């Protein structure tokens, strides 16, 4: 049947593809470059894992290697899932399968990468939707730990790593408290300043420690090094307008590179974000607004409100039905596009912007000569459910299997009934 043809190599399930040895030329597709532009009738060529050509198919240039006729189709850089826990938990309700949250409040030394399950069944369902990379992020505590960026076709976490220990994740305190049950009054959190001071003291202690003899060794404070030498970013998980403002001042005071994550009320404090060039990892579009008086489309418009001010925005995957739903990342971008955001800007959210924020835009994030050939071909508009049907996908030029545990069961049972 027709739909079976969509599936490539049906035997290479989950087996990582081997190193690219022959070149590919994708001809005739609409190329969405990831930087906000597109090329109709494009020609994309790549060899040895790197993109060698991006231009028009009308160009009279020799096609390298295998030519894929992609006329009527679309090419995209691989999508990037930011602030995700993919590979850290396999089944939500089975505690034994969960490795996302460690005990303790200050855990900068806790590293997600070493727990990342490169063979997760959940991760392999990302690829048929165009999501080829992710920032794997620990949860919990005041400082949750250190994230890493991986690509989704690897034998193990070491092979998967694109950027090891890219940033430290901190959960900013809230300035209001709210007690469940009777009264339901919102009150000022009297400990708010104290909580901030604790964080401030902690970073100061780290700075002092790192300047000193470092003996005896302090694993936690040692782990803060990247923040101060700016090889790591500080991902601040923070939502309120006051809290975001305070977090920006905090980061400036400590001289660290800040990324705002969550950012429910970022649209109210765009001035300070623009002024300090702070990028924002917003929540997915498919969420219910928090207050009954909110506009029904409030969460559909968060990207627009920040992008139109010139803020670098990507989509994070912390709230909502996490992990299994991460594969709907493209449709969240599509929803932002449905509610005012330019379509190519919506693509940019989950490609170049994500790469820039994660500090990997030198290797991925757009269809640019010299970058990794991490890209895919879709039958149609990949931000629309009806069009997001992948025919080929490549990571570092390696042609991926688009099979999964799920496609295997699909075929197995379709065949069962076909043969009955």
């Amino acid at each position, binding site marked *: 049947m027709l739909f079976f043809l969509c599936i490539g190599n049906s035997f290479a399930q989950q087996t990582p593809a081997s190193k690219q040895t022959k070149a590919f030329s994708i001809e005739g597709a609409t190329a969405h470059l990831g930087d906000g532009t597109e090329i109709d009738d494009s020609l994309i060529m790549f060899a040895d894992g790197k993109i060698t050509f991006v231009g028009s198919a009308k160009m009279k240039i020799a096609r390298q290697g295998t030519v894929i006729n992609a006329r009527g189709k679309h090419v995209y850089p691989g999508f990037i899932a930011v602030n995700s826990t993919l590979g850290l938990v396999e089944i939500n309700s089975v505690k034994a399968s969960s490795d996302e949250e460690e005990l303790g409040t200050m855990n900068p030394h806790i590293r997600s990468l070493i727990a990342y399950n490169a063979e997760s069944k959940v991760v392999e369902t990302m690829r048929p939707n165009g999501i080829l990379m992710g920032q794997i992020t620990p949860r919990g505590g005041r400082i949750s730990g250190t994230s890493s960026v991986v690509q989704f076709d690897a034998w193990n976490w070491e092979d998967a790593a694109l950027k090891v220990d890219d940033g430290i994740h901190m959960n900013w305190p809230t300035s209001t408290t709210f007690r469940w049950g009777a009264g339901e009054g919102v009150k000022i959190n009297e400990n708010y300043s104290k909580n901030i001071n604790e964080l401030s003291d902690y970073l100061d202690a780290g700075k002092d420690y790192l300047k000193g003899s470092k003996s005896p060794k302090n694993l936690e404070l040692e782990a803060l090094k990247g923040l101060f030498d700016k090889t790591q970013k500080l991902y601040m998980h923070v939502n309120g307008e006051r809290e975001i403002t305070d977090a920006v001042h905090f980061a400036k005071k400590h001289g660290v590179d800040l990324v705002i994550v969550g950012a429910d009320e970022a649209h109210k404090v765009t001035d300070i974000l623009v002024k300090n060039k702070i990028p924002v990892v917003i929540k997915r579009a498919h969420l219910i607004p928090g207050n*009954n008086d909110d*506009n029904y489309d409030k969460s559909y418009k968060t990207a627009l409100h920040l992008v139109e001010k010139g803020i670098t925005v990507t989509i994070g995957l912390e709230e909502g039905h996490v992990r299994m*739903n991460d594969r709907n990342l493209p449709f969240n971008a599509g929803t932002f596009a449905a509610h005012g955001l330019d379509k190519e800007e919506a693509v940019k959210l989950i490609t170049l912007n994500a790469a820039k924020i994660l500090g990997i835009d030198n290797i991925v994030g757009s269809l640019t000569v010299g970058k990794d050939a991490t890209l895919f071909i879709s039958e149609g508009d990949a931000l629309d459910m009806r069009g997001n049907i992948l025919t080929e996908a490549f990571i570092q030029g390696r042609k991926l299997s688009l099979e999964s545990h799920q496609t295997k069961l699909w075929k197995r049972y379709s065949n069962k009934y076909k043969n009955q």
Partner: protein
Amino acid sequence: MKKTLLLFLFLSTLVGQAQEYFPTNSGVKTSENTTVAFINAKIYVTPTQIINKGTLLVKDGKVVSVGKNVRIPNGAKTLDLSGKSIYPSFIEVYSDFGIQTPIQQPNPNRIRQYEANRKGYYWNDHIRPETNGFDSFKYDSKKATDLLKAGFGVVNTHMNDGIASGSGVLVALNSSSTDAYRILDTKSAQYFSVNKSRLSRQAYPGSFIGKTALLRQVFMDAKWYESGNAKNKDLSLEALIANKNLTQIFNAGQTNLNAIRLDKVGDESGVQFSFVGSGHEYEDIQEIKNMNATMIVPVNFRAAYDVSNPYLANQMELSDMRRWNQEPSNLAVLAKNNVNFTITTHTLKSVAVFQKNIQKAIQYGLDETKVLEALTTVPAKLLGKSSEIGSLQNGSYANFLITSGPIFDASTTVYENWVQGNKHVLSDMEAIDVSGEYTLSYNNKNLNLSIDGTKGTLKNGTTALKSKFSYKDNWVTITMNNQNDTSKYTRFVGALDDNQTSFSGTVVDESGNESSFTAIKKSDKKKVSKKKNSKSTTPMVVPVTYPNVGYGFASKPKQETILFKNATVWTGEKEGILKNTDVLLKDGKIAQIGTKLRARGARVVDATGKHLSAGIIDEHTHIAIFNGSVNEGGQNSSAEVTIEDGINPSDMNIYRNLAGGVTSAQLLHGSANPIGGRSAIIKLKWGETADNLVYKNAPKFIKFALGENVKQSSARVNYRFPQTRMGVEQVFTDYFQRAKEYDAAKKSGKPYRKDLEMEVLAEILNKERFVTSHSYVQSEINMLMKVADKFNFNINTFTHILEGYKVADKMKAHGVGASTFSDWWAYKFEVNDAIPYNAAIMHNVGVTVAINSDDREMSRRLNQEAAKTIKYGAMTELEAWKMVTINPAKLLHLDDRVGSIKVGKDADVVLWTDHPMSIYTKAQTTIIDGTVYFDLEQDLAKRKAIQKERSMLMNMMLNEKNNGGKVQAPKKNLNRANTCETEATELN
């Protein structure tokens, strides 16, 4: 400032405290039978029978005579009340006065108890009609004092514990007497509440819908027991039966919908309840009126919210701010709508604010005679005691108030509250009002003294001097600071002269030298009647909307005749997609489909470039249900409950679903137990009442559940059967076997005990009710079909059904449909093999497949979820679209009414800005029964209105705060999502 303590003088001389046939060993036995005559008073015999300059004759604690020309017997004590008024004392109908509520024992291990504690009583510990409030009654003098001050003379109290909480006690607040006299009735009323007993941890009922079901069953069982059919002794039912002719008082809690539902339960059971209400009856006034019940209404008006910090204030919702503004008008609205009501102090933190709140209600338009009736004759009648209390007719208890003027005026002083002929002084009637401006002279100095009631201030010219003042029992005391040296004082003490216009006495200066002083009145106090002024302007009350929350309608939307021109029409029928087509909606139906249609009087909508489809139908959702009414998990079967009892018509998710093109939904019970509850199938008519949301003549449905949830996989302690899928099968077999036997007994014509649960299960066996079963893995899916086969019925729908693709052929053979998620999986162990191709495989085999949400967020994007079946499994666009329209309509047996665009079907349609399954589309207009319930333009207007009203109310609250009014912290609503497991654990 020193607080003036009011002394209560208990004069025990008027009623003989030695009971007449009791022996006495302390002296000579005496009996008192003094008659007291109150003359020249304005007497309110009842709120409408008023005697000017009348006489009230009291003897032995009762009214002997009242009227204009009453003969005063010799030896009577006469009190001249010229210029004063007498009112009957108030009656508090709902109270737990003097009865201690039990304290719940802690349950640190959170163990759930399924069985009852007691034997010989009803099987459910929360049904306790055998409780006699009197058994635990201990007169509370302190609380009595508060109530007396508020004007009450009689209080009806009870043990506030349990759903059926027993009978109450009627008590006169005669603090100087004993229970021998003040207990008026030990079975004054029968009480119910929506709260479980604190004396038992029995889990059932764990929800409001469980409570309504339990009550229905209790009243049925009482009938069965009364007719002598029961083999066992049941002291609870005996008490319930014994109490059935008493007044039945139900504390329905904070939600109007509770009272409205419970009134229906009463109607079905032949009981008329009187309801302790929410205090915001005005929001559902028509339905409250239709109940024809007496409402016992609290006057607990919330303080303004402190919105001075916008960051905190932003978290508030319009609906809460509105209630602050609207609540004081509640009683006026009830009165205007002729609802019979009495007023209670219940829920007031302090009874001291009662009078003030009543005055506020009057300021908001409540008629004063109505208030008086609501506090006297109405409660007396409600308790069947009109001849004894609530009025001052001959023979009534001498329970009355003596006031300086109209009782509800802020400037009126209530002097005395007489109960059973015993006087309780609230304010000294003999006290002389010395208010006025005085010249205080001593040692050749002159100061100005200004006295207002018992307060006074000293001034040098117009400069106020630091001083302390008191006036009591005709004596004045002033302590004045040296204005330069605050450690030095001058003291005055003096008595009122006989002329009552001056004081004279002694002054002691800073050095201890004594001399005399006088204070001579220059002028009377100017009566500034502030209250009168504010009374004349009724405060601004913002209008109620439908529903009374943000995005509500100013008036309920009306059905229209609408002609859509030139649309792309997704018929969902064999005609497929029709381009450039007109559709006419008339009288709530789809009237015509064609080209170049015309219709007189129709509103024409140019739909060029737009798509028109049938409204989306969500087969599985839990929106529009009150928190805590999704699951009744207190037992492994809850067939007796119905979600119709738990509908919340003001849930914002209704509006948000409309914005996603959803027009109908099945509100399902959760998945806490194998046999769940009955569904409510509704149309999302935003602004309509709960009843009007429900489909008329809707097919009957019930929710079943299988697998991890029902076997309590995430429970910490395992104790309820079943704990395995093996046990789940036996639960069904057991219940259906019993239902079969029940049905046979019922059909035999012999007497049988009517059992709600069995009635519902028998409906399934008789193919009158359809089953939607929550299901995941293939083994359990297969199992349930086999159980159904065995009992000769069909499962109608498997919902979730994530492994349906593994047994699709068996499902087709059984004739069951499927309602599934588009792409959910991995959230628990049993969904490990869930695949997004499930819908397509089942469809290809020939099963009717719908895509559902089970999620308030996803439900507003079901068009996108349908589109996923194109990606996963290569469904055609037409077939994909049917999965959220005509297919769920088929599963719900509503396909003859909704689900497609066909002439004669209900006009439930959506106009989309784009292809309905495009990620880029929006629902522009959503129409149900020809009425527009959502429209993008309307939505923009509503946003502006919300902003305007929020800011207006916030300004009003800030104004209140700045004028010294009380404020409270802003309120935040959690908006918790309902899921299958709302009662139990986390995600379904």
